[in-house]
């Protein structure tokens, strides 16, 4: 047992004296949270929309006043007057403006005559986010303009009442579960993967192998140390990320305990997976070449960015065996939904089982000799 603790002691001393590992496993996920949280979470502001008015009637003036109201208040877009529809289309195509609204001749007359009035909206649909936002904004504006001034006493359309269970979740909060899982993964990737192979190549393992340490002590020593590093990374990112995203859940003891359990389970799962992959590798280039691909392979199918239901069946199959999926689901359940242990019990079960299972497979593959 003491020999196993000697391995853990050595690994932990190295961890605390190696700023590179700490910075990489803590700072990179934080940077990702900040950059992606701000890059994807924002609303469109100040888009340039051309207005080509062939009508110049009272209804087109009303429409333009509505545009000005948007430009002055929520500032989604501002309008630029164009005389020529062809020029407006060309400018949308070349990216000088983001969209163009065409008000056709006789628009006001058709509105008053209730004769199927139409407006044209030219958008650049190669940018789905921008075009989608402008389309939605224009649609709500048109709906508001066409709604009757006096509402009917009895509503004749089906109303959908939307009940949101949780407070508004901005993108930074949404990304936090993935970021915590990523921090643990990076810690395992560097501490359990790259450094493990580097130690092998430098002959450090040769030094271990000539001592009376048993295979089990060696395997468990290295894996417990690897998992401990991942747990430390997970705790740091959970606290820092929650404070940055404005989540007060970390101040609730029960939620803290749930988070700690998830972090430990996730760390064991990631570490077991990494050890299984690296157990027979000797070339230090292999983990470096592997990790870029592995990152993509595991991160994206997890449902941390896009819902798993949107994936094709083969990608959904990957997400079923991907420990990231369960980490992200568990962290979401605790951080964003306050779901309690009931919400994370299957995640914990999978992550612990996955970690122990991979370790059980890897242990016989570990060679006690060179």
């Amino acid at each position: 047992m003491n020999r196993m603790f000697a391995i853990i002691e050595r690994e932990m001393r190295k961890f605390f004296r190696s700023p590179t590992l700490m910075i990489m496993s803590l700072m990179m996920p934080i940077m990702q949270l900040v950059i992606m949280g701000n890059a994807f979470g924002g609303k469109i502001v100040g888009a340039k929309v051309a207005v080509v008015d062939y009508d110049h009637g009272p209804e087109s003036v009303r429409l333009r006043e509505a545009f000005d109201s948007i430009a002055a208040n929520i500032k989604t877009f501002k309008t630029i007057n164009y005389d020529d529809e062809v020029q407006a289309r060309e400018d949308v195509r070349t990216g000088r403006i983001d969209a163009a609204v065409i008000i056709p001749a006789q628009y006001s007359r058709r509105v008053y005559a209730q004769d199927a009035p139409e407006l044209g909206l030219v958008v650049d649909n190669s940018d789905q986010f921008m075009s989608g936002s402008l389309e939605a904004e224009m649609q709500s504006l048109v709906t508001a303009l066409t709604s009757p001034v006096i509402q009917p006493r009895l509503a004749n359309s089906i109303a959908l009442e939307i009940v949101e269970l949780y407070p508004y979740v901005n993108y930074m909060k949404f990304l936090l579960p993935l970021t915590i899982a990523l921090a643990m993964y990076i810690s395992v990737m560097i501490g359990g993967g790259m450094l493990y192979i580097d130690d092998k190549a430098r002959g450090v393992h040769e030094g271990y192998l000539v001592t009376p340490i048993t295979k089990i002590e060696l395997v468990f020593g290295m894996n417990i140390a690897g998992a401990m590093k991942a747990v430390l990374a997970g705790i740091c990112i959970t606290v820092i990320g929650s404070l940055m995203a404005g989540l007060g859940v970390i101040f609730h003891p029960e939620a803290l305990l749930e988070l700690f359990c998830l972090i430990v389970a996730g760390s064991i799962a990631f570490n077991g997976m990494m050890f299984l992959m690296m157990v027979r590798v000797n070339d230090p280039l292999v983990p470096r070449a592997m990790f870029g691909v592995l990152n993509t392979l595991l991160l994206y199918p997890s449902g941390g960015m896009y819902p798993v239901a949107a994936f094709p069946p083969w990608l959904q199959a990957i997400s079923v065996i991907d420990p990231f999926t369960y980490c992200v689901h568990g962290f979401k359940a605790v951080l964003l939904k306050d779901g309690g242990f009931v919400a994370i019990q299957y995640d914990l079960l999978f992550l612990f089982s996955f970690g122990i299972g991979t370790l059980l497979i890897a242990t016989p593959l570990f060679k006690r000799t060179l």
Partner: protein
Amino acid sequence: MSAVAIRAASADSDTSIKVENVVKRYGTFEAVKGVSFSVANGEIFGLLGPNGAGKSTLIRMMTTLIPITGGKAIVAGHDVEKDPDAVRRMIGVIPQALTSDPDLTVEENLSIYAKLYSVPRAERIKNIDDVLEAVDLTKWRGAQTKTLSGGMRRRLEIARGLVHNPKIFFLDEPTTGLDPVSRVAVWEMLDNLRKTRHLTMLLTTHYMEEADKLCDRIAIVDHGNLVALGTPIELKNSVPGANVVEVHFDRETESWHKRLEGLEGVTSVQAESAGFYRVLTSSGSKTTMQLVELAASLGETLTSLSVQNTTLDDVFIHYTGRQLRDETVKPVFMMPPRPGAQP
């Protein structure tokens, strides 16, 4: 094996290491081909050979790092294959590479290895003090290993191998990569350790001087075979010719080799490069005179001439037919130019 006089260990109780017909195969490649030898208690035994000869493979088999394909190795009375843990408890191993952790301090490195050998706490503290004293690193005990020089790091490796008080010490090329001053310091330290701790040592090296200075007996290994075994003196005496004369002529002619072989007392002539010959002779002084006279009679110039006793280099060349490693020849005696000769 074209054996030299071999001093075998008299009885098993006096033997620390016994290797019997050990073979190591990697697929079809045979790295070690049926090597046998034994090392007596308290002896320093050297495995000498060029890179790729099989020295490290042999030492790795004896230290349980790689399995033996055939044969048997008994270390400290335990079979390496059947009872590797018992062997590991009795041995200290210094690998070829510097494997101490650069991020840890000297003391931490030693402490962790002592723990890996389950040395009790009180004993551990005492052992660390003792080995640091023995390798003269006491005042560096708190220094991070990465701040030490190459020689100091090698001394730390040696201390690490001793921290659990082993009976047998294996050193794989312990001075490789060290400057000459550090190398001599390590030799002195190993000699002191042998005397004070009564250690049996088995070291591999490709430095002739190291083997000559440190080892009680030397085994020469080449292409996985043990080609010679004996004390340094026995090995040197086994080579015909008492002296080696190294002669460098100004220009090469086809007749030099034949003429040199014809000189009185010469037992063999080896051409090293153009105009440069190593001549094994029973009388260095007589052959030197004859060489000077021969060159003068032919009107040739001797660039350099040196006489020395037979070295392990000559032993190695004698048994393997090639040099251990390329070395610059340093003549001990330069012939003055003949009066009137062109520079």
